[in-house]
């Protein structure tokens, strides 16, 4: 039996991919040469350019082999896991949580044996025959630096040994099959290559497939995220009355039980902070965009626009620091305390202001593009009527750009609603239903983080509520985005 260690798994896959690339490269060179030779060097008689024949050879050398490899890598652990089931009592293996733990143990012991063999503390023979009767496996493995949490049970050791054997066999077959498929496809491509062969169309099809795959990944990921949140949210709903969650006025999670998990204080904090942020960001961002698009000379624009966009490059946690050490105390000392409205350093005002600043470049940049997209002929028409610049902006350009601007504002709003770091540091953590903007409040995002950080298990309503909160947040922002798209589509002017 060949001894391929599990630790080498990635390495061997990597080498296999390298081998596929080499086959592909050979395919490129040979198919190209064969295509040219098939018409005695008169390239004009080829259906496709020689390069396309070359790429066809490359694709045939790489893709089928790669597909086999990927499928194998996905399937092998599942097959092995199923094969190992007879090492353990059925009841233990039926339970998903226990099975996961067991398999983790098995893999860890198997990896330990691999390491031991690699370090020379054990020979290959011994690693296969080792048994719990001849002494503590845990101690043996500890001596070569593999720490195990508990003593190895006989079942786990046997399963680990079986695991190693099957993994090694699997790796061998994986290599053989991948290379065989790649070789066959390579030879087939070579046979197909002649003057009339439509290599170009085939290459185009593969490119189309590649592009479609890329777009599918993004969509599938979104669906996956929603589904995973949905399943946890349903679990939450089975543990906690969902009406209390949506309409509860108190948020006081208590890990001993009797929690009150009302959404409304968090929702109120989120919307209030976002409102303040938009009141700051929309006028400033819009005015910036109008200045840049309509008034600024090309030289000013080329300096100012990148400078504003620098703000977008600052990590939000730095903005959070700014809110915590600068804006918060300033607002407290100069506005809140003198007006007698509060004495808290973190407040709705602080977080809203800083999120607003964060969103200025977002709005100004989008609105600038939208204003620039308004046709010059409309400006000419307005100036030709004797309108001033601001009349033109107010009466012609903004109405024409309005759908796009509304879209930009709604996108910025969903960013403000989803913002986490700045509210964590600037708004505080107290869930409160209050109108006073100088009071500390908190948002959905902050509470998602605080419910999930620390040593938690996903089996109590106090932790699962985070998924319900996340789902709520997702629905709100999704609704905003859909609404934004609807507005943009409905009121878009068609220009040629």
């Amino acid at each position, binding site marked *: 039996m060949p001894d391929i260690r599990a630790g080498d798994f990635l390495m061997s896959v990597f080498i296999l991919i390298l081998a596929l690339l080499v086959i592909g490269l050979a395919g490129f060179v040979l198919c190209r040469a064969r295509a040219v030779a098939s018409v005695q060097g008169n390239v004009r008689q080829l259906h496709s350019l020689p390069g396309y024949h070359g790429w066809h050879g490359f694709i045939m050398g790489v893709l089928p082999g790669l597909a086999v490899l990927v499928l194998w890598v996905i399937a092998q652990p599942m097959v092995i896991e199923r094969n190992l089931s007879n090492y353990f009592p059925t009841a233990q293996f039926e339970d998903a949580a226990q099975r996961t733990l067991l398999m983790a143990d098995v893999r860890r012991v198997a990896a330990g044996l691999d390491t031991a063999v690699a370090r020379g503390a054990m020979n290959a023979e011994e690693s296969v025959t080792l048994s719990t009767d001849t002494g503590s496996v845990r101690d043996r493995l500890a001596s070569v630096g593999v720490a195990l949490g508990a003593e190895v049970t006989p079942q786990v050791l046997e399963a680990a040994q079986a695991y190693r054997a099957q993994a090694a066999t699997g790796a061998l077959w994986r290599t053989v099959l991948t290379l065989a498929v790649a070789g066959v496809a390579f030879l087939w491509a070579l046979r197909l290559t002649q003057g009339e062969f439509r290599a170009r169309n085939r290459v185009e099809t593969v490119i189309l497939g590649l592009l479609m795959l890329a777009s599918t990944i993004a969509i599938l990921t979104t669906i996956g995220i929603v589904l995973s949140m949905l399943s946890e949210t349903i679990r939450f709903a089975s543990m906690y009355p969902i009406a209390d969650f949506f309409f509860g006025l108190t948020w006081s999670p208590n890990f001993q039980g009797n929690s009150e998990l009302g959404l409304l204080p968090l929702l109120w904090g989120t919307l209030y902070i976002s409102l303040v942020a938009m009141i700051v960001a929309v006028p400033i961002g819009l005015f910036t965009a109008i200045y840049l698009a309509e008034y600024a000379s090309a030289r000013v624009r080329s300096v100012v626009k990148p400078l504003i966009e620098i703000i977008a490059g600052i990590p939000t946690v730095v903005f959070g620091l700014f809110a915590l050490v600068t804006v918060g105390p300033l607002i407290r000392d100069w506005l809140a305390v003198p007006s007698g409205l509060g004495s808290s350093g973190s407040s709705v005002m602080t977080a809203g202001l800083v999120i607003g600043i964060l969103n200025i470049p977002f709005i100004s940049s989008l609105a600038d593009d939208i204003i620039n997209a308004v046709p010059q002929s*409309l400006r000419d*028409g*307005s100036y030709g*009527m*004797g309108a001033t610049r601001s009349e033109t902006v107010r*009466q012609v350009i903004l109405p024409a750009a309005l759908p796009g601007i509304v879209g930009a504002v709604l996108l910025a709003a969903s960013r403000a609603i989803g913002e986490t770091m700045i509210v964590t540091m600037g708004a505080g953590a107290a869930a409160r239903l209050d109108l006073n903007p100088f009071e500390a409040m908190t948002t959905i995002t902050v509470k998602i983080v605080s419910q999930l950080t620390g040593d938690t298990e996903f089996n109590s309503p106090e932790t699962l509520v985070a998924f319900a909160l996340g789902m709520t947040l997702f629905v709100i922002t999704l609704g905003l985005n859909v609404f934004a798209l609807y507005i943009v589509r409905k009121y878009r002017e*068609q220009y040629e």
Partner: protein
Amino acid sequence: MNDMRIVERAVETRNIKISARGVQVHYGDKHALRDVDVDILDNTVTAFIGPSGCGKSTFLRCLNRMNDTVAVAKVSGTILLDGEDIYDRRVDPVQLRAKVGMVFQKPNPFPKSIYDNVAYGPRIHGLTRNKAELDEVVEASLRKAALWNEVKDRLQEGGTGLSGGQQQRLCIARAIATSPEVLLMDEPCSALDPIATAQVEELIDELRASFSVVIVTHSMQQAARVSQRTAFFHLGNLVEYGETGAIFTKPSDPRTESYITGRIG
């Protein structure tokens, strides 16, 4: 083409509305227009013809200072409107453009209702005192632009929903709503089909009664049909300027003849 009719009209004498002397335009390093001297008469349609890039549109845009909106453009020389230098520092281009209206190559109605499009000029210049007066101006302008009957029942609908020819007549109505003294038209029919073109040309002839009209056109037939006087531009120079019938029948410059007969252009 009815050359007899044109000759007949030209007999009447008219006042000089715009007088341009030694007008030069530079776009950055490019010398777009050299030493143009033109007198544009009142109640006359003046056509500017010439091959693409000859400077005819550039000159048109000098007449209402639209070149001010182009950062790299530099205009020198004098242009007098009713004896007043429009490039004088005391002249506000905004007020000038209320007196010298403009219609562009492509119909460019604003994204507003038909009514608001026409009311745009009167509103920004404060020409009317109340809604009733504004209604009157809008109706009169639309009637003059021969559009009233087609749109009177849908004044509140968007101007961009009209057909190309209707849009261009809407733009003309918009331009004449401020009662300008001169109407500049930059290839107003180039984006229109023949029927719409005929409508707009008929309209131009009627507008002559109230304004001085200057039209830039690529179509020599159009120039012959609608204008009383024609200026021929070539490579930034004003080659020949005179009575339309004379330019088309016995041009004095060989370049004009070549262009009219289709040998340059």
